[in-house]
């Protein structure tokens, strides 16, 4: 076994090896642009967001109401039976205080991503969104929150038509 040998293959480089030109690299930026179709179910979801409400979908066979909507039930593999409005009020299932951006830059004021279980959905049917209007150290699992919507003329049929979820008065 190679582990008994003095040294395994693999040559570690330092950033300075590249900056100084001791190790040569080729730099390339991939150009990739996409326009993703929303699809049947999420298209309805986005329409509803533009109107200022949240839409779930119900499977009568599995007795399940879930968000985000989908065209088919992944469990029974039948079509989803009905779109149903769900409340823009829910409960924080879990959250994080995130001090780094997607490209690993430090930020002083943390982003507050959370999984939010919306009222009127089945257990374990939460959505990802952000919390706001709350001090980071005051956020708790189980906290009741309500969507803060953009004004109607600014809504364009996107998940960001909800700015964030903020605590209900009195928690």
């Amino acid at each position, binding site marked *: 076994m190679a582990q008994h040998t003095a040294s395994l293959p693999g040559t570690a480089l330092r950033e300075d090896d590249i900056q100084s030109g001791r190790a040569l690299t080729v730099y390339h930026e991939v150009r990739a642009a996409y326009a993703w179709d929303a699809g049947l179910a999420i298209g309805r979801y986005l329409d509803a967001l533009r109107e200022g409400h949240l839409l779930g979908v119900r499977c009568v066979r599995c007795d399940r109401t879930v968000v985000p909507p989908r065209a088919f039930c992944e469990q029974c593999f039948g079509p989803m039976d009905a779109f149903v409005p769900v409340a823009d009020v829910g409960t924080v299932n879990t959250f994080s205080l995130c001090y780094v951006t997607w490209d690993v830059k430090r930020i002083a004021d943390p982003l507050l991503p959370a999984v939010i279980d919306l009222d009127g959905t089945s257990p374990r049917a939460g959505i990802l969104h952000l919390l706001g209007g709350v001090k980071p150290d005051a956020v708790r699992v189980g906290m009741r929150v309500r969507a803060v919507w953009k004004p109607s003329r600014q809504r364009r049929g996107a*998940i960001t038509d909800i700015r964030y979820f903020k605590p209900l008065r009195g928690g």
Partner: protein
Amino acid sequence: MSMRRAAVVGAGMTKFVRRALETPKELSWHAAKLALESCGLTLADVDAVCIGSAPDAFDGVHMKGEYLADGSGAWGKPVMRSFVGGGTGVFLGPQGWYHVASGLFDVVLIVAEEKMSSYYPHAQAAFLTIFDHTTERPLEPNLLWIFALEMNRYMQTYGISKRDIAQVAVKNKRNAADHPAAMLGEANITVEDVLSSEVLAWPVQRLDVSPVSDGAVAIVMASEDAAKRITDKPVWVQGVGWNLDTAYWTNRDLAYPEYVERAARMAYEMAGVREPRKEIHIVEPYDPFDYKECHHLEGLLLADRGRAPELVADGVTLRTGTMPSCPSGGLLGVGNPITAAGLMKIAELFWQLRGEAGARQVPGTPERGLAQAWGGLMQVGTVTILGTERPA
């Protein structure tokens, strides 16, 4: 099952480093060559090749399996690259097994390679496209979010503290101090070091997380007849399992990985394991974050729900304990070149079960070990069980 038996007969690996001078093919070649030499084989003895490598986006090379094929010893041979996210490295166990068990091939070379350093400025951004493009990506998520959210849910559900979980990082980084390929082995690291490290996405801190790494690992799997010709110490594949949940990751219980349990049950049934806590002697659960080791020990039915952190505190999962967990040092200590890190876990079982793990050797004579990996949007479970006893 009317399948042929399969055994691991050789293994090799490169160092895991933050950034390697070697190209992905060169890393693959080194690991594959070492694996073949470890059991006295040459490329001429290899009937087929299995390759595991994570997203093409890391390398900016499309069809990475095809790119890696010659470096993995696949010139002119049947070859197949698999990819099931972070679970790929341990999925190579099932993949190699069915190549042999089916009767199609007698000797299969299995290579896992990852080079995460090429992506600029940081490999984390290569993961952004895993999130749903319409309902999640406009929120500008980063990869840490899913782990931080899952870790917090796990802690909240069972009342587990950061201190409880930090002990896993300490155990694994200390174990890695004895691994010649390790990036982050630290014999003297303490819980306080973990708890005082930089907060990335609370509750996740710097030392709760495994590093971005480059590296490659290879093993050789053989049919029973071939294995007996090659070695007098074959390590048998006793069970394999894998399972995928949907990508609706916010729609499941983030405190418990049911898909890992389903993968484990598949593997236990095949291996004839009825009491996993007694019959699994060494475990290499996937530990890209310290809490994940706990999460996975529970999903593997090796700990009660919410109780895995106690196993470290009680010494059960230390290298000298009754069920050593990550004796290699794991991803937290050896490093995390994604698929290579998963296959490293299978290689570690091979060395441990043959008594060849050197300074890392667990005491006694372990007869059975389990490796597990995880991936995707909290949705992939892969399991491989190896043992010294020939399967029935």
